[in-house]
């Protein structure tokens, strides 16, 4: 097992490197001189030259990448043009809000997805199955930013039960003042993973139940609860893989939801970075989110190998 983890860790290094390269290149695929983006519009030629050297834009690209990567590894993601603060600091402040939102949404999505999926798979072709299938297809087809708007219309504008925007006063705390703000965005975000987890588990459970080993278990006289335990055990590895991937998508895909609810997370940060052409901030935020995604995938792989004897650990 330790050897497997070590091997996966080693294999993840080239991916991390390539991801960093893509993030680095983002600044350079941007139209125009990357320097323009770090300069105030009224900068003098002298300042331009100074900044060019300060940012290292006069060096060849591979050297620039090397320097950038070296700094990034040491936690220095550059300076935000808009705020003048360090990018690492900005991202660090926002990422907590994104993680809270993503984990809560994931929890909701996985819990309901698992419930719906198991029920539908267990009662295949019943009316429950049909209702659940419709819900899950609607879930994966939903423009979730629109769902967010609709929920705001219903629960904030019309019923007035929950706040429409923001994360509450001051920093985050686990009290009702703050928690009521997270409900709508979390529910909105949970819809897609709920749909996908439902679909996956429904198909898995349906397949497993039609297999012979289940017939054998029933023939052995096992009660349905025990049969269910066997099925759940067999469905677990795939389910965990899907869930890990979905959690990653939530972390990276929260930008639209954060925009709708003005949620002060990384997505909101990203949005302002894009419209203020704050490329260092854009680059840094995306790098951090992509790294979360890469390491989440790594954890999922290891977990899967730990619980599924069929995956070779050599």
């Amino acid at each position, binding site marked *: 097992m330790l050897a497997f983890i070590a091997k996966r860790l080693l294999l993840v290094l080239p*991916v991390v490197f*390539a*991801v960093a*390269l*893509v*993030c680095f290149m*983002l*600044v350079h*695929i*941007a*139209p125009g001189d990357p320097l323009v983006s770090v300069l105030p519009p009224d900068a003098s030629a002298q300042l331009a030259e100074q900044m060019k050297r300060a940012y290292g834009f006069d060096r060849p690209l591979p050297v620039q990448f090397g320097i950038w990567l070296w700094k990034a590894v040491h936690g220095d993601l550059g300076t935000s043009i808009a705020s003048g603060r360090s990018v690492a600091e900005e991202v660090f402040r926002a990422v907590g809000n994104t993680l809270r939102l993503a984990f809560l949404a994931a929890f909701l999505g996985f819990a309901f997805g698992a419930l719906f999926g198991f029920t539908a798979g267990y009662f295949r072709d019943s009316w429950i199955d049909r209702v659940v299938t419709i819900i899950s*297809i*609607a879930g*994966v*087809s*939903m*423009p*979730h*930013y*629109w*769902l967010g*708007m*609709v929920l*705001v*219309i219903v629960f904030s*504008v*019309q019923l007035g039960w929950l706040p429409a925007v923001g994360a509450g006063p001051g920093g985050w705390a686990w009290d009702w003042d703050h928690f009521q703000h997270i409900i709508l965005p979390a529910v909105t975000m949970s819809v897609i993973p709920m749909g996908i987890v439902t679909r996956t588990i429904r198909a898995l459970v349906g397949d497993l139940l039609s297999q012979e080993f289940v017939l054998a278990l029933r023939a052995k006289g096992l009660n349905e609860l025990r049969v269910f335990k066997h099925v759940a055990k067999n469905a677990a590895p795939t389910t965990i893989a899907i869930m890990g991937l979905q959690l*990653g*998508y939530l*972390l*990276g*895909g929260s*930008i*639209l939801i954060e*925009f*709708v609810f003005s949620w002060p997370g990384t997505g909101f940060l*990203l*949005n302002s*970075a*894009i*419209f203020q*052409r704050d*490329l260092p901030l*854009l680059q840094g935020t*995306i790098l951090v*989110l*992509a790294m979360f*995604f*890469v390491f989440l*995938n790594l954890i999922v792989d290891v977990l899967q190998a730990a619980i599924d004897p069929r995956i070779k650990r050599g």
Partner: protein
Amino acid sequence: MTIVATDIVRIAVVDKARGYWTNVGRRLMRDPVSVLCAVVLILIALAAIFAPYLSLADPFLGSMIRRLRPIGTPGYPLGTDELGRDMLSRLVHGGRLSLLIGLLPVVTAFVIGTTLGVSAGYVGGFVNQTIMRTVDVFYAFPSVLLAIAISGALGAGITNSLVSLTIVFIPPIVRVAESVTTSVRGLDFVNAARASGAGPLTIMRVHVLGNVLGPIFVYSTSLISVCMILAAGLSFLGLGTKPPQPEWGLMLNTLRTAIYINPWVAALPGAMIFTVSICFNLLSDGMRSAMDVRS
């Protein structure tokens, strides 16, 4: 020769053989959900294409005194938007750009992704490794993040958002194309064709493409729904279409503040995105089961 006539198993109904795709079409037509979705999509597409000839109100003409009228206002069946423009006309006209930016990236990605994936699968070796490892890098980003990152770096604009969406959808299509091709290449009918003395290009044309295009196509259709949502999402963030162009995602953005005045008009463009997206999803599911020849 002594082959007995009883060997010949006669099939009771002599079914006139049809082409493979004709059969798929016939099976699809027997599925009511698929037919309904196809009809809805065709109606929306036709309305969008022929929007200028439908004698609708001018989608660009606003009126300061008729802003945000509710649904059902005489003369404005679906109300008016925040600048007093006719919602019905804007929704119909909006279909043109929305459908285009939802479909074009997938079509382009299908062409590029299939070429790359089939080459990787059929040639194997170094070509395969180069293509597939590059694709792996793009898998290290969640798709929404990747689309927004590229779009954001390139700057707002419809071309840039088309480019970024195409880049997002190429890697998954390459993966599917590669795995399907690799498995088909290993089948014995390809070996039999090689044993007949056929060259690689002939085998590719006659035996490989016909068997891999179907699965890749169906997989790609399942991406259209995602692309519709993402494309409109980019516009919603202000990264795609620019005002005053009617486009569902952008309309949703500009109507955001109107939810306090006339919420249901503000929600209309999203309902369109949802309808189109769910129809593509169901149609893709229907096609998948219709293509299973053994069912």
